[in-house]
């Protein structure tokens, strides 16, 4: 019996050594996926459905690093194996992606991701609002499990993911005038937060993917782009001067009632300056927009008042 155990132990050691040697020179400390599977089979069963599982292997890898499978992200695992495993155990080159880690460990975790994802939409991550607030990639992404259709998010959809922290915009989307962003029970789901924002950082304001807020809006509302013969200058500068993009109690997602909205900037002689009773045609229906129909700009030679 003792001989059998000794032989088994010897064979196992030999296989491990060979496995490590085949993957990388032993001095590098890499052990290979087979060793990881021996302890983490259950997690890897979930993992195999993810895009990382499809890419980080000999078949599809584009670099030596990508061929290392689990160790592409976690770093060399020899010390982790030798220490008998455990969260956070594995030496300075080992990255466990533990949620328990703080401070510089967060940067190390994120650097491991950025090593491959430093281009594309992650280009502006360093110094971005989320990076500055010590968010780890794993706060939003679940790398070891396919929860969402895209982007390996922790939630099923982008909107659900973002609203985990950004509760106010989610609440604003329940208002009568809103973008088609509602998910779940209210089942619209045409848009996600990522259609306008880049959570990884952007060069535009408020994490807007486009160069400006207006450029973002023009993506779907190009009819407002102009240039027009008769412009409404605040419209050209910032759509959010008048609209609340996440939702409003007012028609067309206007910030306040149309009459008051216009009157906050226009105190001309006669009709713009009247306070108006609630039954007035200047308040009801489209209010000022009943006549000033081309409030975003007019291309009509007689449209100086944006009425044509």
């Amino acid at each position: 019996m003792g001989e059998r155990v000794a032989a088994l132990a010897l064979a196992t050691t030999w296989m491990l050594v060979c496995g490590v040697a085949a993957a990388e020179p032993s001095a590098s400390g890499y052990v290979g996926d087979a060793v990881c599977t021996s302890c983490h089979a259950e997690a890897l069963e979930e993992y195999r459905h993810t895009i990382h599982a499809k890419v980080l292997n000999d078949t599809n890898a584009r670099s030596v690093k990508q061929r290392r499978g689990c160790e592409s992200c976690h770093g060399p695992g020899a010390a982790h194996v030798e220490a008998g495993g455990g969260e956070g155990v594995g030496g300075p080159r080992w990255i466990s992606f533990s949620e328990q880690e703080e401070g510089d460990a967060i940067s190390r975790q994120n650097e491991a991701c950025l090593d491959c994802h430093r281009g594309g939409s992650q280009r502006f991550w360093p110094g971005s609002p989320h990076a500055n607030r010590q968010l780890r990639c794993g706060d939003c992404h679940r790398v070891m499990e396919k929860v969402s259709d895209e982007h390996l998010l922790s939630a099923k959809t982008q909107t659900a993911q973002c609203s985990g922290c950004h509760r106010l915009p989610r609440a604003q989307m329940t208002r009568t005038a809103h973008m088609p962003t509602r998910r779940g029970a209210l089942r619209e789901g045409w848009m996600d937060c990522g259609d306008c924002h880049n959570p990884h950082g952007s060069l535009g304001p408020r994490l807007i993917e486009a160069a400006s807020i207006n450029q973002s809006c023009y993506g779907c509302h190009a009819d407002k782009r102009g240039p027009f013969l008769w412009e409404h200058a605040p419209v050209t500068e910032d759509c959010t001067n008048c609209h609340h993009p996440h939702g409003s109690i007012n028609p067309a997602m206007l910030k306040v009632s149309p009459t008051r909205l216009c009157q906050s900037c226009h105190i001309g002689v006669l009709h713009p300056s009247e306070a108006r009773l609630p039954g007035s045609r200047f308040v009801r229906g489209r209010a000022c927009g009943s006549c000033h129909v081309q409030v975003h700009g007019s291309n009509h030679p007689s449209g100086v008042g944006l009425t044509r």
Partner: protein
Amino acid sequence: MSAHSCAPRLSLVGLLLACVALVPDVRAESESSAADARISGTVEIGGRTTSGDMEAAQLRLYRDLDEGAIGAFRFLAEDDAQRFYLRGKGENIGYDDQRYRLEGGRYNRFAIDLFYGELPRVFSTSARTPFVRSDTDTFRLPAGVQSAIAALPDAAAQSQALGALLESAPRTDLEMRWLEGRAGVEYKASERLTLDASYRIQDKKGNRLLGMGFGNPGGTFLQAPGPIDESIHTVRSSAEYVREGWSVGAEYLGSFFDNELDALTVDNPFSAADAAGSPTRGRVSLSPDSSAHHLSLSGAAVLPVGFPARVVGSVGYGINLQDDAFLDFSVNSAFPPDPATGSLTLPQRDLDGEVHIVTANLHATARPIDPLDLGLRYRLYRWDNRTDPIVFDQHVENDTGLVDEPIRSVSNDFMRQDVELDAGYRVSEDWVLHLGYELEAWRRSESRQVRDLAEHGPYAKADWRPGPRSQLRLSYRFRDRVGDDYEPCAHFDATLQGCSELGALRKFDQADRSLHDLRGRYHLMPRENVDLSLSGDFRHVDYDADFGLVEQQSWSLGWDGHVQLHPRIGIGAHYVYEALEYEMDSRWRPRNFAPPIVVVNSPLNDWSSRIDQRFHTGGVTLDLVLLVERVELELGYLVHHGREKTNASGAAGLATPPGGAADGGNAADWPEVEERLQAATVALEIFVTDALTLEARYRFEDFHLDDFRREVSAFEPDSNVSGSGATSPSRDIFLSEALQDYRAHVVALTASVEF
């Protein structure tokens, strides 16, 4: 009901049924020829039944919840070595909100992505209009209506006749269908080089409310279902090369807006023959065709210094073009263009509009010493409108009257620059503190009231993470905005119009102001199975203005939590309260109409208004595993309540000029606008086998909107009311686009087969 017939929907679901029938064969095939391909996926089929107010516009706003067969599918096919893949999914098949996506390629090499989707946009299902569409862009009244109304002796009689006409006006739905198709390809030429190209078309067809006025302000207006037939073509291509310490990229974005309709022409009910002052029709221009091109170059590099430092930047150049042909000055034949005299002839055929956009960005980050992070951000956005101004010697106001005075178009342009300096310091293992300074500077053209404007101030952010289960984030920002001298008549001077604006008005986008912004969020996980968070913010803006928007304030408070009571029972709850307040001051400025013209500028006529908005949004969820790996139940409830109150007050004893207009400064409170939404959902999933899941879903929605502004009939006899409460005969045509309340029950039963 939907314009769609059921036939295509049934056909598509039938196709899915056929797929389900073939599933065993597919599985057998995939197993028997495992060396070739792996196919997995889900096919879902079932039916939906509904009851309640299913026609309500708000229910159908972006959804098609018609009864009938429903289906969805998703699949993934891969070769045995998992190099190549084909992935697809479809949902809401056959309905007005159907969506499909097909992706394929080789992992980590190339990908082709195709998408097709439809989105309904229902504005109103209660609108009524007497106008009949006679051409793609022309709406006419029934024969004889104009002459009958025009022949009546006075406004009161005409108003009565119009009311009778509108009472029997037929219903028309205001809705749009948005179709979108996308095709994209991404090619990773190497680990470092990625090439990307995509094309998207958005096609919008339908109608929406459009209006037009006749005569001067105070004249009549009408609203009609303006047609929509627009498309946007977007082309994007990019290349990015990424190395260990640096990367470069280039991107081109082209957008082409195409409007099939140039104008909307609608009959004026009060005129049977064109004449100055009484047009038989009015015509508004619709959005002109335009194109936009933007090219940007970007790069990032790790700086060769003795500490971690990185810089990323971009420069971009774009041009927006618009040269759609102008319409004539008026559709009223009483104002014909006369090339011989030059009267009402267009000085040029089109705008030849040209806007150049320049963008530049630079963002540098560095860690010169270990706990200290520094950041510098600079952003420039220049909107350089090089469209030449056009002087029109005459124009026709609202197709009604000739204005024989020149007006000049202006090309507003602006440049915005942002600078931010940030220093982040890890005070301890638990605390990170960020201090920074922001500057936002604007330079606008002379046609704006303020040319140079700068807003700047410090901020502080603190993150406290005493442990992995607790985190507090706080931030405070103060900004002070100061601009050049405010020129109230700048726009009027630029357009050669007489200045009618109140001199003391300060428009809120250009007024001096101070801003305080405080935000916080506390996240706590006291136990492994409990997750709680509390968040809030406060924002106060004080405008240095006597008139216009003078103060703006908002604050919100919210919490949410989730407790996993048991491995089989999870409960979640959330609530957010938000309050927004706006205060504005104004002045009623009457004038008389007979020379000498006197405009009254009296403080007696000052009035102020305060707008309060309050919102409560909350919900609960309950997830139950009734039988492990067999039966799961999800319950959800969402409730939202919002209201807007617009109050106003003004001094009594208003000043009016001799023979001037009636009292318009009597400020009165408006009725409260209230919205309420409740949604309850139940989803029961039964996992019959590993491959077969039965699901029953129930959804209840209850929507209520009390909005006096929207609740208008096609004819509103008392809406032509002055500030003193005196009413004149109404001669306006509304479209009556109120949003109806609804209660709706939706039940769906589906079977999902996994293969």
